[in-house]
C-alpha cells in the first residue's frame, strides 16, 4: 500500500513538472502528456523501473475508462445545441473512424511486413 503511495508521489511530481514545462515554454500540450514524456525520458536515462512506480501506474491505467466517464456523459445534457446536425455528426464519426482504422491497419501491416522481408536494412 505504501509502495502505491510512493509511486503516486512520483507520478504526481512528474505531472507538476509537466505543468511547469507547459507554462514555461508555452507548449500546446496538456500537462499530463508533457509529464508522461518527461517520465519516459527519465526512465530511459535511468534504465530501471522502480517497483513503486509499477505498483501505482498499473491500477491508474486500468481506471482510464472510468476517469473519462464524467466528461463523456456531458453530451446527453447538451444535445439541444446541435439539434438538426446529429445525423451529420453520426455519419462523420462512424464512417470517418471506420475509414481511418482501415487505413492505419493497412499501412502499419504493410510497413511491418516490408521490415520482416528485409530485416538487415
Amino acid at each position, binding site marked *: 500500500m505504501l509502495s502505491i503511495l510512493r509511486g503516486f508521489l512520483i507520478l*504526481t511530481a512528474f*505531472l507538476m513538472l*509537466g505543468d511547469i514545462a507547459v507554462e514555461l515554454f508555452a507548449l*500546446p*500540450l*496538456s*500537462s*499530463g*502528456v508533457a*509529464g*508522461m*514524456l*518527461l*517520465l*519516459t525520458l527519465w*526512465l530511459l536515462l535511468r534504465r530501471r*523501473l522502480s517497483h513503486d*512506480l509499477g505498483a501505482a*501506474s*498499473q491500477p*491508474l*491505467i*486500468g*481506471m*482510464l*475508462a*472510468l*476517469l473519462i*466517464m*464524467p*466528461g*463523456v*456523459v*456531458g*453530451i*446527453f*445534457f*447538451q444535445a439541444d*445545441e*446541435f439539434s438538426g*446536425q446529429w445525423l*451529420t*455528426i453520426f*455519419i*462523420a*464519426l*462512424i464512417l*470517418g*473512424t471506420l475509414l*481511418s*482504422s*482501415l*487505413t*492505419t*491497419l493497412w*499501412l*502499419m*501491416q504493410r*510497413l511491418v511486413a516490408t*521490415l520482416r522481408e528485409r530485416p538487415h536494412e
Partner: protein
Amino acid sequence: MSELLLRLEGLVHTLPQRPETAIVLTLAAYFAGLRLFSWLRSPAWCPPILLAACLLAGLLALLPLDYIEYRRGVGWLTWLLGPATVALGVPLYQQVHHIRTLWKPIVLTLPPAAMLAAGYAMGIAWLLDATPTVLASLAPKSVTAPIAMGIVEELRGSVSLLMGALLITGVMATLSITLLARWGNIHDQRVIGFALGINGHAIGTVRAFDIGPTAGAFASLGMSLTGVFTALWLPLMWHFVG
C-alpha cells in the same frame, strides 16, 4: 418530527453538491456497466464504458442533480486523469525495445494516420454542411481526452460535443479494428495495438491491454504520439484554412 422533515428538505439541497454523491454515482454506474456487460455476454459492439455512460446519464437525469453540479463534485475523481496520463509512460518505457526495432513503420505510419483520423471525419462532416463549431468539435475526436479538450478550446468548438465524439470514436475504433483485424487475418499485437491507440485513444488503449501487454504498450505509444502530433498540426492547419 417537523424538524426532521425540515432537515430532510435541507439534505435534498446540500447532498447533490457534495463530492461523495458525484463519486458514488460514477463508481456505481461504472460497476453496474461492467456487470451488465458480462451479463450480456461481452458484446463487441457495446463496450462496458458505453453502458456505464448511459447508466450514469440516466441516473443524473432522474435525480435532482444538474450536470454542472455533478461535474464540480466529481472533480476529485477526474483529476486522477492527470497522474493516469503520466502513468502511461511506464508501459511505454517497458516496451521500448519493441519500439526501437519498429521505429521506421511507426514514424512512417503516425503522421498520415493521425491526420486522416481527423481528416476523414472532418471531410465527411464538411460535405454534409456541418457548422464550423461542429467541425471544430469533431476534429480532435481521436485524441486522448485531456489533450483533445485543450485543442477544442483553441479551435472554439464545444467540449461536450467533443466528449460525445470521443466516446463514439473510441467505441467505433475498438469495434472496427477488432473486426478488420480478424477479417484481414492480422494477429500482430504491435499492429493492432498501434492502430487502437491512434484511432481509439484511451478507450482503444483499454481494449489493447485486454489483448495483451505488447498491444497495450503500442496503443499507449500510438495514443500519446497522436495526441502530441495532433496538438501541434491541427491548430496551425485550422488557422491557415479558416
